[in-house]
């Protein structure tokens, strides 16, 4: 996703002109970043696909509002973050599916042992929304603290704090679940 602003501007001009190749390039260039964010925030593939599609449609509809002096990816990810938040809010208002309702009804029931990545996703799902968003943007989208601050509208210092707390909670979760490292470390 290392694309210069001038490349972004050229791409956007092509999209605004209705060039089908530019449209296809626009989606293909950013779909991994947008879908990765949505998938990790929502933990549901079909929801992530729906939201990602909606993000691109909204972005293309409002493409003329993009500030050409700034990179395109953060602007697009800002839309994605807002759509993910909306989707999560709607999910809270909806009834829980039966399989999740059973888990909620019995909090003592521990989910079965998962592999390392699944355990981490389980822990990420339990993070506060702000912590989860910072963690995903930092580790999946590889954005800097300043970029995350711009997207979320929070100060960089706050982002740094949220990120540290997210890591701490995730590490504690893995330790509680007695996850064994897959490799042995040489601590020298």
């Amino acid at each position, binding site marked *: 996703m290392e694309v210069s602003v001038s490349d972004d501007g050229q791409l956007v001009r092509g999209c605004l002109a209705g060039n089908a190749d530019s*449209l296809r390039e626009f989606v293909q260039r950013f779909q991994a970043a947008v879908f990765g964010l949505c998938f990790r925030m929502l933990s549901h593939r079909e929801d992530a696909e729906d939201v990602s599609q909606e993000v691109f449609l909204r972005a293309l509809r409002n493409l003329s509002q993009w500030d050409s002096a700034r990179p395109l990816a953060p602007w697009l990810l800002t839309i994605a973050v807002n759509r993910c938040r909306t989707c999560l809010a709607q999910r809270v208002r909806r009834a829980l599916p039966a399989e999740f309702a059973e888990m909620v009804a019995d909090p003592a029931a521990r989910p079965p042992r998962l592999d390392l990545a699944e355990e981490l996703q389980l822990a990420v799902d339990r993070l506060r929304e702000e912590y989860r968003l910072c963690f995903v943007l930092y580790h999946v989208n590889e954005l800097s603290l300043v970029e995350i601050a711009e997207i979320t509208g929070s100060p960089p210092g706050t982002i740094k704090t949220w990120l540290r707390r997210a890591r701490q909670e995730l590490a504690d979760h893995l330790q509680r679940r007695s996850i064994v490292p897959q490799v042995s470390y040489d601590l020298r």
Partner: protein
Amino acid sequence: MTCADFETLLDVQFAPAALREHPALAEHAAACPDCRIRWEKFRLLADAVVAWREQVPEVDLTTAVLAGLPSAAAAGTARGSRHAAATHLAEAAAVENPRPTVSAPALRAKSGLDRSRRALVVAAAALAAVVSIAVLTPAFRQASHQANSIVLVPATGAPVQHDGVRQPHRLMARSDAVRTGVPSSYSGLAELAVGAWDEVSMLVRPEAVDPHSPRPAPGSRSTDGWIDGLQDQLKPIGRGLDNAFDFLWQAGQSGDG
């Protein structure tokens, strides 16, 4: 390196690759038991993050997005958007994808709107019925201290006959003001309630010019004409209430109730 330095560096340098290759952190962790615990915990997290990042499935949204562009452009036009690009996008996408699709969230939102609209009409109608009964029935106009002055009297004003001949009755109060009112039977109240319902429906759904138009076909989304059917359904209920009070009145007069 102190433990505080270790903590700071651990936070700053937390990137899966960088963490593993940072010799100063590893050196301090090897010498400090407390920091070693934190070090191992975060090394585990770093490994988990690496595996977690690799598990994002690959998708190709190009077809779905291009297919959805006409509806997006149409929405932009309907809102008075000044972005001519939307029209360009729609035309370009329509040529490539002649079959537009609607996303699942859009469908859910649309059906939710219809449900809420229907619920609003029903709620308003029910409220109108209750208000009509409360306003038009003299018994409901009584203050709480006058509640014991409510009696059942024959609608005709004639005494009740005990020879098994039923006469319609109604609730009525002793006060002259109420006695001079023209209370109707319960079937009549039902008709008044339906009339009020009719007026409210015109307010809630101004596009429904004639609510007494023929009942819509099954499956149709239009609710025009449902008033008539409802009135037919409410009339028997009102007659049933008349009969019930008639029976209670006679039972009370005979002393066996």
